[in-house]
């Protein structure tokens, strides 16, 4: 029985460990999924905000000179209250117009990396504070003349991920409890043969020990029935040999001058 409980405990521990890993990885994955959903929505917004500036760039107007720039940026920002800021930047990344007061001087370092990786198309990235999404604006001869950068907070994202993590954790606990009960049953039935065998080993050892005590009082080792005959006879042979050697040693010591 001890074996059974030990195995059951081991199974439960392994189950716990594995489900923890699963919940951990699944939460990470959900984080990825959620981020990509938010990011893709921001891409739509970035694209839309850039449209009038693209028209201006197409006719050759330098971006910084579009007179109603700030109004255009602000209009886009108002489509979603959560947006922190929208910036219009030039080809070197300096911010030309912005909805933020005071406006930062240049786009953040991650934005440079993102632009480089996206090669001019729309992209988004998760940052420590939330999200940034951007799209380049090109002139008629396909030279980048600047772009739009949207800054979005990550708070809502974090909340949803935590909620999902909690849900998954609860799920796992429920499954663990169910598994505990079911596996006890399952193991009992399934490992029946093995447990019997193990108990046979145990009883072989026990009966050997009994024989060993009794042999001290002169009774010889007796052979009992059972599967683990081999084990029992091994034990007894080893014991016999030990006793023989021990006695030899003792004799030598007595003989010694």
């Amino acid at each position, binding site marked *: 029985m*001890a*074996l059974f409980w*030990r*195995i059951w405990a*081991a*199974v439960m*521990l*392994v*189950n716990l*460990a*594995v489900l923890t*890993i*699963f919940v951990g*990885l*699944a939460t*990470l*994955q959900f984080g990825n*999924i959620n981020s990509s*959903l938010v990011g*893709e*929505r921001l891409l*739509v917004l970035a*694209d*839309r905000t850039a449209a009038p500036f693209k028209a201006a760039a197409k006719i050759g107007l330098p971006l910084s000179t579009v007179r109603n720039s700030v109004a255009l940026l602000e209009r886009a920002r108002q*489509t979603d209250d959560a947006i922190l800021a929208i910036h219009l930047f030039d080809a070197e990344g300096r911010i030309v117009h912005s909805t933020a007061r005071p406006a930062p001087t240049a786009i953040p370092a991650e934005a440079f990396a993102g632009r480089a*990786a996206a090669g001019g198309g729309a992209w988004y990235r998760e940052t420590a504070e939330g999200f940034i999404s951007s799209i380049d604006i090109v002139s008629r001869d396909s030279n980048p003349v600047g772009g739009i950068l949207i800054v979005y907070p990550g708070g809502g994202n974090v909340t949803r991920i935590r909620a*999902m993590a909690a849900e*998954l954790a609860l*799920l*796992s606990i429920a*499954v663990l409890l169910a*598994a505990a009960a079911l596996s006890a049953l399952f*193991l009992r039935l*399934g*490992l029946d*043969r*093995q447990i019997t*065998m*193990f108990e046979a*080993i*145990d009883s072989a*050892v026990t009966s050997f*020990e009994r024989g060993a005590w009794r042999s001290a009082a002169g009774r010889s080792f007796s052979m009992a029935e059972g599967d683990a005959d*081999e*084990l029992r*006879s*091994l*034990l007894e*042979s*080893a014991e016999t*040999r*030990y006793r023989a*050697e*021990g006695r*030899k*040693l*003792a004799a*030598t*010591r007595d003989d*010694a001058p």
Partner: protein
Amino acid sequence: MNARVRSLNRDSLRTGLIGMMAAIVTASVMAVGAASIAAFDRAVEPELTNRTRLIGSIVRSEIQHALELGIPFNAIVGLDRYLSVTIEKFDEVDRISVTSVSGQTVAVVERPTAPSIFERSYLGEVIAFRQTAFAMSILNGNELVGEITVEISPLFVQTRLRDVFLDVMVIALVATLVAMELALAVAVTSVGKPLDRVLRLLGQQRDGNFLHCIRPGGLGGLGRAAARLNDHAEDLAERLTALPAAVRSRIRATMDTRIAEGRPLRLRLSDINDIRLALFLFSVATEIAAAFLPLYARAAVRPPWLSPELAAAAPLVLYLVAVAVLSPFGGALARRFGARRLFLASVPPTVLALAAMGFSGSVVWITLWRGVMAVFYATATIACQEYAIRAAAGRGSARPVGAFVAVVYGGVFCGSALGGLLAGRFGFEAAFVSGAAIAVVSGVLGLVAMRGRAGDPETAPTPSPDGPAPQPWFGARFLALLLGIAVPMNAATAIFIWYLTPLILAASGSGPAEIARVVMLYYLAVVLFGSTVVSLSDGRIGSVPLLVSGALASGAALLSLTVWSGFWAVVAAVAGLGLGHTLIRAPLYALALRITGGSGAGLNALRLIERIGAILGLAASAVLLGDIGAESSIRALGIAVLSGIALYAIVEIAGRFRSA
């Protein structure tokens, strides 16, 4: 007598136990997995439609702005073009139509139905997507003038949900694989080994060898037996030491018993499974960047003469070369220093390399550290391989190498999935640092678990116990095996799996996540069926039939692409190739071992030639791809594989005739 007890108790108990554990844990994972998928879908679906709604409302606001400026509703210039551009930019929109209040269509643009690569998966029927169209009213001042209707492509949503499903499946598989390894480790330590130890010591003491003691502890009777046997050895040793020196030497000379000097030595048993968990984690750690290394390398600072594609490939190439160069010497190293020491020595440099790769800015450094990692990956895996072979007493069984391969590929699978997840969430540096941490854990586990003689340096050459007399290495049979089976197999892997499949899939529109999943299918086949093949190989079916059928299957898989094409054809080919190679791999190594006399040296030669074949194949296909095209390359590969089998079969049959 001993053997029967051992086999009776140990194997069935362990297999039974592992089977139960695996079943229970897998069932739990699947249950949580299914519930997760449902939860994810519930969260994802509304967000998907939010984006489309946003697109619709943007179009509407443009129209309303035009109306406000006084432009008549049916005279809005450029509306058609605007709608077309919108549909082009956003995949999920199938159709946009603008109608007036009277029902007249002002403008309508529909996505041209391109031949769909992705057939409707069964998920489409399972997950019914409720809403496929949105209608929004168009106002001019306070007057309702019309309506804009946006239709969403159901395929788009299905694809996204299917992606969620597959991602969760991958995570479930990773968790299950980890579970298997953990279960095995637990079973071995708590049940298998204690019994083995007692039995071994019993055998020794029955034969008069009292030199050793074993780790105390064990369930019930076993624990007591262990204590008893330990005491035998200690007692005799104590008494011998108490005797004067002269008497001692006399006894030594006369008695045929062996008694320990001082304290009895700890007997440590080696088992193939000792290395499993450590090697698994090590493999996870080193492969953590597998999914994104090309991206990472391409985005890093590179010298002007290096193109982005070369930069992406550089780490991979250096890896292959490093492993190829080291393989011949690895076996000698393992024998000289002992598998345990070699493995443990390989861990710190790997940890360092992983951490360094995370913080390297330039391609040169990344490639360099990858090379360093490759070298120590090679030594670590060779060390484990040696340990495994020695622990299995070099019987030429497929088991040790099969187990070994399953562990490594399982690690590759889990590592790349984990790395991809971590990188996506926390960035590349975090993934590398996690890899380094996992490598540390694997080192600790290796220290704890790799006990026993199998880890020690080899003093005398192991004799081959049975099997035919070892042939000289460059015997026809070995060569046929090498050139006919091993090289085509590895060339196929390198060319088709690593190089052509991503190219073909990307050309037909798959994203990197999808490509990664398809490529992982190949490794999944190894993981799932590896152990079955191993037992079949050792058991009734035997190595050669498996080898041949595997090679035939892989040839067929490759050639199938000349008949069918498309996404699912590629998936089937990858799966088929994976299955075929799984059937080949373990029997191949077993045969190689047997032919070259049971030592690891032959295996290392095999691996070396395999790697060289892979490098040459990759280089050749990269050069030729532009000229002859993907389809012809695959056909050539398929033919090469089939002719390889033919060659091997001929040599084998000829050999049989000669010896008959």
